[in-house]
């Protein structure tokens, strides 16, 4: 069966520093993929390439069998939840108005908006301004906005950073329901290794290069592999700071090949 996402040898340089270096992996229908990596590992850049926001990368990315740089219509099948950003309290859009922005260019039924709002359990807040909600609730509004167009794939970029743990648990429960009950394929980046271990069926570890991609238990159940990933990430950052990124990539090339599934 054709993978939903296929990333092939993707590299992207930012001011001569490699943000992504020969990343390759694929995502199958129904996967719940957790992408982990430290700050600056290139997770957001990878998503921006996957979504066609950044276009000048080398390599190829196809979504639903279509090159993202050739056909942007495929984005209609994808819901995107970006890194949490603070919404000003005075921003004059209600929860309903924000959710309705999930569908652009065609009519949207009132029931679809209501159903998405109810699914994220914010029915009581539908007429409140989004800026008046807590940060956890605001992220659920963005999920509802992504759901209203009934996506087949949901991409979430560190959606719970800075959100309190109770709100995080509620958010994770929501993701699990979307994956299991609605069959939505989820690709989700996070710093929270515990949450990824608990929720994700597959894991990809990146730090500009791909260190591992495979079943969650193959990573979290293998202590040596986890320890080696931490060392890889630490060395990668130290080398980058001391301007030795090229050596790092040469040294880690074989390592990557060995672990990529």
């Amino acid at each position, binding site marked *: 069966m054709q993978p939903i996402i296929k990333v092939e040898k993707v590299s992207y340089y930012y001011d001569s520093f490699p943000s992504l270096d020969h990343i390759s992996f694929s995502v199958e229908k129904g996967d719940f993929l957790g992408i982990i990596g430290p700050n600056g590992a290139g997770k957001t850049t990878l998503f*921006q390439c996957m*979504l*066609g*926001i950044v276009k000048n990368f080398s390599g190829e990315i196809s979504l639903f069998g279509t090159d993202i740089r050739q056909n*942007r*219509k495929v*984005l*209609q099948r*994808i819901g*995107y939840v*970006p890194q949490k*950003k603070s*919404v000003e309290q*005075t*921003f*004059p*859009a*209600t929860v*309903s*108005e*924000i959710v*309705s*922005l999930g569908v*652009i*260019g065609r009519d949207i039924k009132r029931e679809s908006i209501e159903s998405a709002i109810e699914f994220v359990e914010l029915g009581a807040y539908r*007429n409140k*301004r989004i800026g*008046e909600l807590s940060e956890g609730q605001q992220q659920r509004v963005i999920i509802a*906005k992504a759901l209203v167009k009934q996506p087949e794939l949901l991409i979430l970029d560190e959606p719970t950073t800075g959100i309190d743990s109770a709100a995080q648990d509620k958010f994770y429960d929501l993701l699990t329901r979307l994956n299991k009950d609605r069959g939505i394929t989820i690709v989700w980046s996070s710093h929270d290794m515990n949450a990824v271990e608990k929720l994700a069926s597959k894991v990809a570890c990146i730090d500009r290069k791909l260190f591992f991609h495979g079943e969650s238990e193959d990573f979290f159940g293998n202590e040596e592999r986890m320890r080696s990933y931490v060392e890889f990430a630490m060395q990668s950052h130290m080398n980058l700071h001391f301007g030795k990124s090229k050596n790092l990539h040469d040294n880690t090339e074989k390592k990557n090949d060995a672990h990529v599934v």
Partner: protein
Amino acid sequence: MLFDLFQYGFMQRSLLSAIAIAVICSIVGLFLVLKRHSLFGDALAHVAFGGISLGLFTGIYPLWTAYIVAILSAVGVNKLRESTKIPADSSIAVLLTSGLAIGVILISISGGFTLNLFSFLFGNILLVSVEDVIIILITDAIVIPVIYVFYKKLVLIIFDENQAKVSGLNVSWINTLFIILASITIIASIRLVGVLLISSLIVVPNITALMFGKGFKKTMFISCAISVFSVVFGIIVSYYSNLAPSGTIVLTMVSIFLVTIIAKNMKIRLNKITVTK
């Protein structure tokens, strides 16, 4: 007695123009305020000043030259900001000062314009001609339908540009379209309050409306209502008290803004007292 003034042709023209301008300035202004481009109106008006000076210098109808110069400058500065990542407020400052500089040079070359230029600087809605009214109504007929069609796209871009891109929107193209709409709105509005007070029409009704705590569409409606009331009330006061209409219009808007702040603070205090009890 009070309504006698509505019998005069010049007053009918001025009220019709003022209401039309008030509505589009509020609508366009809400997007500008939320984009943190509040001073964009001021900058464009100063560029328009350069365009007006050019028109007066060359003998072409000044509003036409103002339209051309302002649209070209606004689109150019927007492209410059996108390609060089210059902060929005800095690019607005470049726009503002260069427009003013061009105007000053043209005035000095021609030995100074007098009455016409003064009316463009401070506005005088009571002097609008039939030609002005037609231009203003055409501007409304362009701006309102285009904003209506692009409403959701514009709101999404203001809320989060990256999400808008992922929704498949051509954000750069829509931003350019909006800049053109803002430019023609501001040039059409110069007749009402002039170059120097144009920002008030863009900013004051909208920051007042934002304090009401309503959704996007309701905020837009409240802003339009405040703006329309202010221009009508300001013109009536100016007529009976023989004051400059631009001044009375702006002071009416600012008064509503201050009253809203006071009322909101009182409401918060009353709520606190109620909770304490």
